[in-house]
């Protein structure tokens, strides 16, 4: 029997942020600290020995408290940060929507930003030409599309970002805190689009703090705590354990 390669394979991934205790960000300071022997680093392990595999077509939510390493994990998966240790293997194309308004120029119009953003995601100008109308349609921002993005509300920016990143069928879609900002009707559209992408074979990995969204859109849940993967399993099971522990912490405060 032929086994299919997983969409995502993460093996023993650790990531260290090295923070200098004395800020030595210039040659001068560096030289002074080097002479005095006082170059001390503080190592912050944002991820420690994280391993998991995700099969093609899965919808996985990553949960955890602030600073648990969720965004760092996404940066590693989108190949922005190289892990200090371990290995990440991803088959196919990745479309990251990492943060609200990333890669948008507030002075440019929505239309111009569609081009800029899609180019940043590695698409060609011709590919954008083909999709730009459907992107505007999906975002529902027809009235504002030719005015600068600084006039948009944060929800509108998120809508545009989501519309651009999902205009192409990626093999892996990474959504970091994007679903929480749109209004209810747009959220419904997002869910429909995610469903379409999944039917088309896309794997979706997302971070959100909204338990309802986790419940509704994922089959499997990864729980990160202090950079470690503490639970990995069916959404209902992991989510209830996570909520329980959060409640417990809140009560003991």
């Amino acid at each position: 029997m032929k086994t299919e390669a997983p969409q995502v394979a993460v093996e023993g991934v650790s990531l260290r942020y090295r923070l200098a205790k004395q800020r030595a960000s210039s040659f001068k300071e560096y030289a002074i600290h080097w002479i005095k022997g006082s170059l001390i680093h503080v190592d912050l392990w944002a991820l420690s020995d994280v391993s998991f595999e995700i099969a093609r077509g899965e919808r996985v939510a990553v949960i955890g408290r602030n600073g648990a390493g969720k965004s760092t994990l996404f940066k590693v998966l989108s190949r922005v940060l190289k892990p200090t240790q371990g290995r990440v293997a991803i088959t196919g194309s990745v479309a990251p929507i990492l943060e609200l308004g990333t890669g948008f120029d507030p002075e440019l119009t929505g239309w111009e930003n569609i081009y800029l953003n899609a180019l940043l995601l590695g698409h060609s100008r011709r590919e954008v030409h083909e999709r730009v109308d459907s992107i505007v349609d999906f975002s529902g921002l027809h009235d504002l599309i030719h005015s600068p993005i600084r006039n948009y509300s944060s929800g509108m920016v998120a809508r545009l970002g989501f519309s651009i990143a999902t205009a192409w069928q990626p093999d892996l879609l990474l959504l970091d805190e994007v679903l929480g900002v749109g209004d209810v009707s747009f959220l419904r559209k997002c869910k429909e689009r995610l469903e379409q992408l999944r039917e088309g074979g896309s794997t979706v990995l997302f971070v959100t703090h909204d338990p309802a969204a986790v419940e509704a859109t994922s089959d499997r849940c990864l729980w990160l705590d202090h950079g470690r993967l503490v639970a990995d399993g069916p959404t209902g099971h992991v989510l209830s354990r996570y909520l329980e522990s959060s409640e417990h912490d809140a009560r003991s405060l």
Partner: protein
Amino acid sequence: MPPPKPLLPYRDLLLELVRRELKVRYRRSTLGFLWTMLQPLLMMLVLSIVFSAIFRFDVENYAVYALSGILFWNFFSQSITSSMNSLRGNAPLLTKLPVPRVLFPLATVISGVINLLFALIPLFALFAATGHPPRWSLLFLPVSILIAALFTLGAGLFLSPLAVFFTDTVELVGVVLMLLMYLTPIFYPMSILPERFYWIVRFNPARSILEVFRDPIYFGKIPPLTHLSVALGVALVAFLVGLTTFRRAADKIPFYV
């Protein structure tokens, strides 16, 4: 070292970055891109007054000699300075999107070349004004510009990650550039150099690049093979050293910008 990221899918992004760079530069001043042409002319004028009227060295058609040097130097120093700022200036993108980082210094050097092409216009006007007939050798100029661009890109790739790790790189390089400017025969001829300084200028790598740039403009000749091979060698070494350094540093850049 990681394998090189495929740049081909990002070619339209590269063009867009170049366009933005040019737009920013020309929006900043009211005279716009006229300034690109005027600035070297004015500098040439000042140098002409200072050096041919006061110091009086004997260079035939000094205006063309000086202007060709200034154009090269402006391209080189401005491109290096903006490459050093290119990574830091794009920090929000570098830390969030998997864009190949090499695009940013590359875009600044390409837009530098475009500026240089605009700045050539007054040079041709100067040819007409001084009765210096344009020669066929000018057709060789694109090759000289490519060599200069390769050299500059190498320096930019070497320095831009350094500017991320150490914030005072820009100031330090500014001083080095100033020193290098005086060690390059931009506004003086090699012949005025005293014996004991001659070798320093002779072995300045920027001099060999300038030579190949100036040969077709001022001397009206295609650079001889000796000049050409040295310049090409210098440019290739600079490029390879720059690229190697950059690729070694590339993974650390998002942690420091």
